[in-house]
């Protein structure tokens, strides 16, 4: 056994945070900058070991999360697939530069392994308190893509998806995990080349003098060359025209903000990922995400065994909010139950799109404990 080939095996027993690294490297991530914080630190530690063993890999520990986000933006502008990982307090520090990345259309991935809050809160306990921060944490009107994962294999899958969306739509993407998922050890299968399609950002092919870095295109996503490749252009967080120069002309201001929204809105069908279990004839639908979705899945099957027609809608994409599947289920169901480890951050969205279609019940837990299957089962039986 001692000499068993370590690198050949494709199945490993991994932490959620480890699966994130595997997913990122598979997706082509070659740049990591960060600052350690529980419960995300393993992502950084493993990156510190792995990246210098890859051909172009760059790892750097910065002095704080503000700096980490700045470095990740710089790395991405220089042509790398770049990421950072953090937890609530660090995520707060990243918000100004996150807005910059939205405005300057810089692809990158931020993993936020949520801890209990507010403030330093509960560093080692599970919570889902940063859902609305992920959506609205930075200032101004901007679209954003926020994903989540329910188990360790999904940590790998959703990290790859996060990089793909970032590159495809030239935008920052946030992956929200909770402490349970990040610190659970499960078997994962390392992906082979053909398992996932990998997207790389579109680079310009026109002569440099014709290139407009923030031009309107059919998809709304302009091509983006790496700094130093002969396409010289200006990048700024100020509202800018299609050449990247600051502008205050109302028509130009409107055009860019609308394009930022449109490039995401147009592709709702591609971005809004959900999974349904037993929903075909469901009278009671549980809507959950993260580790809570696992509890919910068990609760739903227990309910079915007890003769209750229950189903589960698992959200893998949190924003843009997957309105279509929620509305479809709300039309048919007698009630919706939204369990989450916060005071009701996704149930707000559910209620918003439900808009009176059916009854929405919330189930919240904010004491640093997980939501158990039996809690959800009880709620199903009560409605």
């Amino acid at each position, binding site marked *: 056994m001692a000499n068993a080939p370590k*690198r050949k095996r494709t199945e490993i027993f991994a932490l959620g945070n480890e699966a994130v690294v595997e997913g990122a490297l598979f997706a082509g991530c070659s*740049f990591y*900058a960060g600052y350690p914080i529980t419960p995300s630190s393993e992502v950084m530690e493993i990156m510190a070991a792995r990246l*210098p*063993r*890859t*051909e172009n*890999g*760059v790892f*750097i520990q*910065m*002095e*704080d999360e*503000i*700096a*980490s*986000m*700045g*470095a*990740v*933006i*710089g*790395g*991405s*502008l*220089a*042509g*790398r697939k*770049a990421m950072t990982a953090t937890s609530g307090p660090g995520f707060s520090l990243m918000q*100004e*530069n996150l807005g*910059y990345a939205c405005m300057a259309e810089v692809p990158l991935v931020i993993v936020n392994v949520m801890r209990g809050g507010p403030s330093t809160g509960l560093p080692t306990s599970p919570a889902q308190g940063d859902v609305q921060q992920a959506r609205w944490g930075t200032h101004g009107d901007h679209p954003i893509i926020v994903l989540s994962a329910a188990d360790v294999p999904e940590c790998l899958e959703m990290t790859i998806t996060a990089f793909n969306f970032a590159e495809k739509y030239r935008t920052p993407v946030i992956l929200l995990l909770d402490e349970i998922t990040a610190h659970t050890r499960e078997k994962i299968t390392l992906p082979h080349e053909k398992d996932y399609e990998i997207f790389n950002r579109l680079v310009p092919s026109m002569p440099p003098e014709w290139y407009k870095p923030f031009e309107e295109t059919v998809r709304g996503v302009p091509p983006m060359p*790496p*700094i*130093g*490749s*002969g396409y*010289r*252009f*200006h*990048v*700024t*967080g*100020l509202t800018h025209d299609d*050449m990247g*120069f*600051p502008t205050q002309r109302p028509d130009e201001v409107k055009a860019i903000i609308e394009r930022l929204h449109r490039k995401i809105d147009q592709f709702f069908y591609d971005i809004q990922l959900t999974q349904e279990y037993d929903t075909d004839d469901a009278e009671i639908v549980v809507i959950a995400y993260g580790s809570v979705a696992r509890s919910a899945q068990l609760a739903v099957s227990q309910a079915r065994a007890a003769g209750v027609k229950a189903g589960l809608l698992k959200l893998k994409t949190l924003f843009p909010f997957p309105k279509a599947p929620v509305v479809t289920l709300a039309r048919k169901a007698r009630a919706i139950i939204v369990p989450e480890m916060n005071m009701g951050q996704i149930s707000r969205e559910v209620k918003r799109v439900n808009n009176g279609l059916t009854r929405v019940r919330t189930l919240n837990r904010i004491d640093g404990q997980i939501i158990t299957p039996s809690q959800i089962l009880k709620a199903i039986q009560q409605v």
Partner: protein
Amino acid sequence: MSDVTQLIHDYLRHNKKFPHVFCAGCGHGIVLGSLIRSVHALGLSKDDVALVAGIGCSGRIAAYVDFNTVHTTHGRALTFATGIKMANPQLKVITVMGDGDAFSIGGNHLIHAARKNIGVTVLVLNNFIYGMTGGQCSSTTPLGAVSQTSPYGQLEKSFDIVKLTSAAGANGVSRGTVFHVNTLDRLIREAIMRPGFNLVEILTPCHTQYGRKNKFKSAVDMYKWLRSNAIPVEKYEKLKPEEREERIPIGTFVQNDAPGLEELYAQVRTAQCAKERKQ
């Protein structure tokens, strides 16, 4: 065509909407000129240079010049620059920041970038004040000076940029002024060519927000003040302590040639990749 006109045509952006934002008499344009001459004299191509700027009047320099330019968030230029340099060590990464940008909001990044010795050239345009936001005091405003937020005179001591950066571990530290342009050109050239972290503090007048409130009747007075007070550091060191008052030493204070962080990192990576291949 005169040399100056030629340089303007070569380096300024033709498609940028001029006129520029700087006030008459502002020193920021002189720094821009000096930077362009230095890059030109070193024979670098425009694609070789990434110019990363902070937020403030000084930060606006980036929009006018035809390099790869990034106008970042206030105080964070060095963090972006670090990312760019680590991702592509071939680039000459130059940052332009105001004193507020570099040493107030961005002070932590500055000392860490210097400590890390990341291969970035830093130009700090020290006008002793926040220009862009209307003249509030900065961490370099002299004791007693009047500003929008020190209307009765500044009570806080100011940073000595050169000493602070030297203590933090930078490879190169120097100080110049926009009056002593030939010296400034040389200091910038040397800073770009030296490995590791190099900082040039550049004294540049802001008559609009600082000068007129602090005993300088006109912008010209501020240039005269630079002319009569700045002296080469070699001469400064020979002065007796009482002769040093009001005098500002300019020139090079630190020059080392330790490899930059990006080089050390690449060495580790090469070694690790070689091990990996053997396995």
